[in-house]
């Protein structure tokens, strides 16, 4: 029970801070923006980790789903939903972005999971290319020039709330029956199926959930940057997210949070180096893969992430060895 109170209090404090920081300008605008991008990066890394870490597949289409969510939600706020004070307008747009991305995820997942191995990487790669070039050809959303004039609705409290919600839901999924199905598939697909896991359906569901949150992150991103264009969501963006996931560690939600934080902070710290920054970041990734291939927290997680109901209840005892 104690643990619940601590987490609750921390979240409350975070919420209060996320409201107070912009209200009383406790941090300069640059740091505020960095914090908000950090939240979005956490959502992106955690959701991609579901596929590349927990499921053990390799997707390179995350930026594509992010783009779908960004455009869907931006179209809603810019063109369809009236500008008004209605409080539900923004969350609705973000949800819509997530749902659009999830549906796209379904369309990609149905053919992509027919065979194993590198097939998903190839299909998601082709998918990301299609999204980008499709957006470049739709003049209604600005074509290659992009979509301008998006309202800055992504405020710090909103981003905080969505980040916490996303991490919570993904963590819930991981510690549940379908989540264990995902883990079993990573460990041994044949054995999982022989234990009664409908592997195809589990994979498609996991992929849709990951896509949903990529879409949510895209929606938040669009309303933070207030401008989106197809170029923003190219393969480089996916590479950034991959770096966060593998830096933090595969199969670990805590790892994704750590990875996204380190990536965001490093990127800002190395900014004075100019172009060299973009040489050093991938170099760090290569060194990491060579010397610590599972990332910082690979396959381990903060113990307090585990729901108490999931722990075995038993009388205290010692090993009989």
């Amino acid at each position, binding site marked *: 029970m104690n643990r619940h109170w601590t987490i609750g209090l921390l979240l409350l404090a975070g919420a209060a801070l996320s409201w107070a920081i912009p209200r009383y300008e406790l941090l300069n605008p640059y740091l505020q923006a960095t914090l908000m991008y950090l939240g979005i990066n956490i959502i992106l890394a955690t959701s991609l980790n579901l596929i590349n870490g927990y499921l053990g597949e390799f997707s390179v289409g995350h930026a594509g789903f992010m783009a779908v969510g960004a455009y869907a939600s931006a179209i809603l706020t810019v063109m369809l939903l009236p500008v008004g004070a209605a409080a539900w307008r923004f969350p609705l747009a973000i949800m819509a972005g997530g749902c659009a991305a999830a549906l796209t995820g379904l369309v990609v997942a149905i053919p992509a999971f*027919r065979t194993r191995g590198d097939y998903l990487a190839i299909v998601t790669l082709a998918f990301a290319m299609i999204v980008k070039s*499709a957006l*470049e050809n739709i003049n209604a959303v600005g074509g290659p020039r992009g979509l301008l004039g998006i309202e800055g609705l992504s405020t710090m409290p909103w981003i905080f709330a969505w980040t916490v919600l996303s991490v919570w839901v993904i963590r819930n999924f991981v510690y549940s029956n379908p989540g264990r199905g995902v883990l079993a598939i990573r460990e041994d697909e044949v054995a999982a199926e022989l234990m009664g896991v409908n592997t195809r359906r589990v994979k498609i569901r996991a992929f849709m959930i990951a896509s949903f949150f990529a879409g949510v992150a895209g929606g938040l991103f669009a309303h933070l940057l207030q401008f989106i264009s197809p170029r923003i969501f190219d393969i480089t963006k996916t590479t950034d997210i991959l770096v966060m996931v593998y830096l933090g560690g595969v199969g670990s939600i805590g790892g994704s949070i750590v990875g996204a934080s380190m990536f965001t902070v490093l990127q800002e710290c190395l900014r004075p180096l100019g172009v*060299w920054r973009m040489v050093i970041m991938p170099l760090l*990734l290569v060194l990491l893969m060579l010397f610590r291939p599972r990332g910082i927290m690979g396959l381990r997680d903060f113990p307090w992430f585990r729901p108490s109901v999931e722990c075995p209840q038993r009388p205290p005892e010692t090993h009989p060895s």
Partner: protein
Amino acid sequence: MAYLFQQILNALQLGSIYALIALGYTMVYGIMTMINFAHGDIFMVGAFLCFVAATVLGLSFIPALLFSMLGCALLGVVIERLAYKPLREAPRVSAVITALGVGLMLEHLTLVFSPYPRHVPALWSSASWHVGGVTLSSLQVLIIVLSVLLMVFLDWLVRRTMLGLAIRAISWDRTVAAIMGVPVDAVISLTFAIGASLGGAAGFLYALAYPVIDPYMGVIVGWKAFIAAVVGGIGNIRGAMLGGFILGAVEILVAAFLPSTYRDLIAFALLFILLICKPYGILGQPRPQKV
């Protein structure tokens, strides 16, 4: 009709470049079952080596081509030894991520030395002939002939020599191949060298055909060539060539009859559909899986 022939010629030119790059992907995949995501950037380095050879070194055509190919071969071997070899026993995904990182490093290192796009001077005094309304440039013919020669040579190498046998043995079972006396490390390095040198040749020819080059040129072209290799059947040499030519044809024909902005969209959509219909590619076959 002449227009169509013209476009077919253009398609062959672009397709042969894609095919050369696709071969590099497919060879590495064939021997290591690893997607070498840095290969597109090796192609880019090949184009920049062509630029260096033509401007700084002032080489003529043949030496410049060899310079690009050997430079890329060396780069390929160095990358393999430093970045991929230590990961041979690690999970496969580690090597893929490493390859992504290496590719990014190549791009941005090139960016450090060349912050803006470069124009490659003509290394080949191109003549052109007009045959019944079709313009045939000697450069175009050169690109196609040279690519086809390289491909025929490679096909012979893999099918008819001991090296080819060694490559196939390693791709089947690395441990057993080593026990049978195949020098595994050397053969893998050589495979990377050959793949990278073909990528270098592709970069060289690309730079002559489309002379404005920049550090990011390898990203899109590389991914496209990779998908071409997959469409042909990844791991299959002839499949990579076929996939390259199919991609070239689709792109040129789309651009010829539709607004050119649709080129990538339709090319990728077609490849996507093809992939879904034939998951193992046109010439590829599923590897038997033992349960």
